[in-house]
């Protein structure tokens, strides 16, 4: 893994896009070096320089961590969101983060107990001081809750509406699988910061019994979208049974609410030709699809093996989740070339630019060494910029935790998501990285690296720029006129600053 020998960039059409240095977000020296993966990135809505990165730890034991940044993700510091585990919990796992409208950080995790890592509860801790201290975790859901996702809709005052989605197992699961259905995907919300929850609603359609891996996205107008995979007849993966890769297909389904999560419409099929890429590692760490929503539109991304090797796909809903266009391929290498692209992650920038990152093995003839690629669309997903390689050194996806379950013999856990945070003219990406792993493939040494992506187009109406320039010129003239007539008092300036800061993105 020699960084200087790696071709630096793919996709000349995106040549104006610049990337910053690749920055390690995790430290390498925490005892037996851990497997850090599955990052999620989020910016404080009241202070965009404050960015958090939550991630899973898969080795040497399961855990969850949080890195914070005060410079927009250019550097990272560790913090301790769970200094003391709740009673009965032996490990913390699968963290999720969200900010409420006032900038309070919510950190959600699943408590695990016993040798089988049974989920014994879902807990929520909050920080009002930018991650310096956290409240004691309190239980928001009981045992047997898997794949819990969280998001906060800010328009419900004063704390926002906290949405939760999860898979509810009926009983203790078998190793690597789920018990016989029903194990429904459920959703609830809270308007009091998670102290009380609305009555949970079942999201998956009754006839879609083998529903797993939910994803949650909030859109404008109190829209709530939940995506999930319907495994169809694939009881082999669902139950964690021994056997080869499932030869049938799965479906990706989205169910949407237009009233803030009080009711959900029946599911809409995004795609029903999803060919499973491999056996599912553990059904409760199965990568969910990536789901985002924007003004009017929603987007879902996933990867599958319909072309033989794995490709990353995205589909667009023009009407807020109730119908879906045909999927498009995100990766621009030749179809069927035997190289994998997988785990796409979407984010929408202010102004509507759709960004995507995914793991990419196109540069390795052996289809092992993994880079990270980026692309974007400024026309609502109708077309995408040429893929751009973000990483200067490859990672080895055979470095990581190996589970001794019959359903995933020989597979290595590389995490279930990448992180992506989109800004008006840039983005921040995070991924699992093994460039510094010390002893080759039979280790678990996974770091998380991040990089800034700059000089991205900030889409808007075609008339916006000239009109904006005229307004700025008029504004400057007005300022000069007013300044000569009256100077504001310091108190007035302070009032203005307080009010304006609350509106910062």
């Amino acid at each position, binding site marked *: *893994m*020699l*960084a*200087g*020998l790696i071709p630096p960039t793919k996709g000349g059409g995106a040549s104006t896009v610049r990337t910053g*240095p*690749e*920055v*390690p*977000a*995790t*430290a*390498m*020296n*925490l005892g037996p070096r851990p497997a850090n993966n599955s990052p999620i990135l989020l910016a404080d809505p009241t*202070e965009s*320089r*404050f960015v958090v990165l939550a991630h899973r730890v898969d080795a040497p034991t399961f855990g969850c961590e949080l890195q*914070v*940044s*005060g*410079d927009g993700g*250019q*550097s*990272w*510091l*560790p*913090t301790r969101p769970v200094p003391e585990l709740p009673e009965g919990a032996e490990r913390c796992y699968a963290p999720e983060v969200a900010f409420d409208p006032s*900038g309070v950080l919510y950190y959600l995790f699943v408590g695990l107990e016993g040798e089988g890592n049974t989920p014994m509860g879902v807990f929520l801790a909050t920080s*009002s*001081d*930018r*991650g*310096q201290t956290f409240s004691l975790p309190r239980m928001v859901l009981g045992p047997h809750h898997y794949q819990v996702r969280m998001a906060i809709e800010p328009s419900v005052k004063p704390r926002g509406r906290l949405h939760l989605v999860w898979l509810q197992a009926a009983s203790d699961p078998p190793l690597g699988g789920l018990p016989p259905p029903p194990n429904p995907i459920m959703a609830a919300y809270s308007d009091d910061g998670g102290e009380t929850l609305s009555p949970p609603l079942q999201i998956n359609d009754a006839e879609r019994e083998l529903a797993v891996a939910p994803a949650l996205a909030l859109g404008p107008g109190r829209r709530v979208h939940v995506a999930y995979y319907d495994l169809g007849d694939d009881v082999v993966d669902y139950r964690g049974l021994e056997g080869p890769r499932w030869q049938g297909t799965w479906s990706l389904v989205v169910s949407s609410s237009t009233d803030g999560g009080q009711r959900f419409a029946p599911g809409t099929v995004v795609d029903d030709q999803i060919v499973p890429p491999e056996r599912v590692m553990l059904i409760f760490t199965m990568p969910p699809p990536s789901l985002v929503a924007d003004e009017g539109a929603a987007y879902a991304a996933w990867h599958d093996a319909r072309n033989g090797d794995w490709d990353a796909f995205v589909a667009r809903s023009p009407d807020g989740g109730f119908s879906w266009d045909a999927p498009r391929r995100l990766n621009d290498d030749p179809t069927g070339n035997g190289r994998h692209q997988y785990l796409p992650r979407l984010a929408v920038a202010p102004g509507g630019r759709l960004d995507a990152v995914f793991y990419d093995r196109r540069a390795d003839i052996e289809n092992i060494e993994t880079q990270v690629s980026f692309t974007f669309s400024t026309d609502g997903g109708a077309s995408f910029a040429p893929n751009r390689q973000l990483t200067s*050194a490859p990672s080895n996806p055979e470095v990581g935790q190996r589970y001794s379950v019959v359903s995933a013999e020989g597979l290595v856990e590389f995490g279930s998501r990448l992180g992506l945070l989109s800004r008006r003219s840039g983005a921040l990406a995070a991924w699992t990285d093994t*460039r*510094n792993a*010390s002893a080759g493939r039979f280790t678990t040494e996974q*770091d998380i690296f991040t990089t800034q992506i700059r000089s991205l187009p900030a889409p808007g109406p075609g008339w916006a720029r000239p009109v904006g320039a005229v307004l700025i010129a*008029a*504004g*400057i003239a*007005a*300022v000069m*006129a*007013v*300044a000569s007539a*009256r100077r*504001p008092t310091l108190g*007035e*300036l*302070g*009032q*203005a*600053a307080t*009010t*304006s*800061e609350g509106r910062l993105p």
Partner: protein
Amino acid sequence: MRSGFRGRAPVAGRIWCALAMAVLASSCQTSAAEVLPPSTPVVEVAMREYRFDYDTAIPSGRVVFRAVNTGSLLHRVVVFPMPDDLPPIDELLRGSGQRIMVPLAGIPPQVPGASGTFALDLTPGRYAMICTMVSRAGNETHAVKGMASEFRVQGQ
């Protein structure tokens, strides 16, 4: 916004507010919630035949090391903790006695001009940085030839 600007010149008032906000944001940070995490210090390490060049004043806490190969051979950097009872790293490398030292972190070999980076959460104490590459003759590591250095992390 309840300032006197509203009835007189709202657009100009808003621009004033934006300008004032930029000034106030840099000078009025009073509550804990307004304190942002500081940026992480970066230690720039130059690797060449046969030495490391870097600023040895390294703080405790999260530190990023960025090592650039400015030489003409393959080089790498590996960081070890050094208990206080150990002799100096140069002496240790040339001595006949064997010590098992567990590395904290490092980067793989870098070709000339390339760089690698890693982060450490450092506690106060003594550390060593060495290059474990072996010379072409195969009888000496770059560390023995001079690419070995110690630094002490002070508490904050």
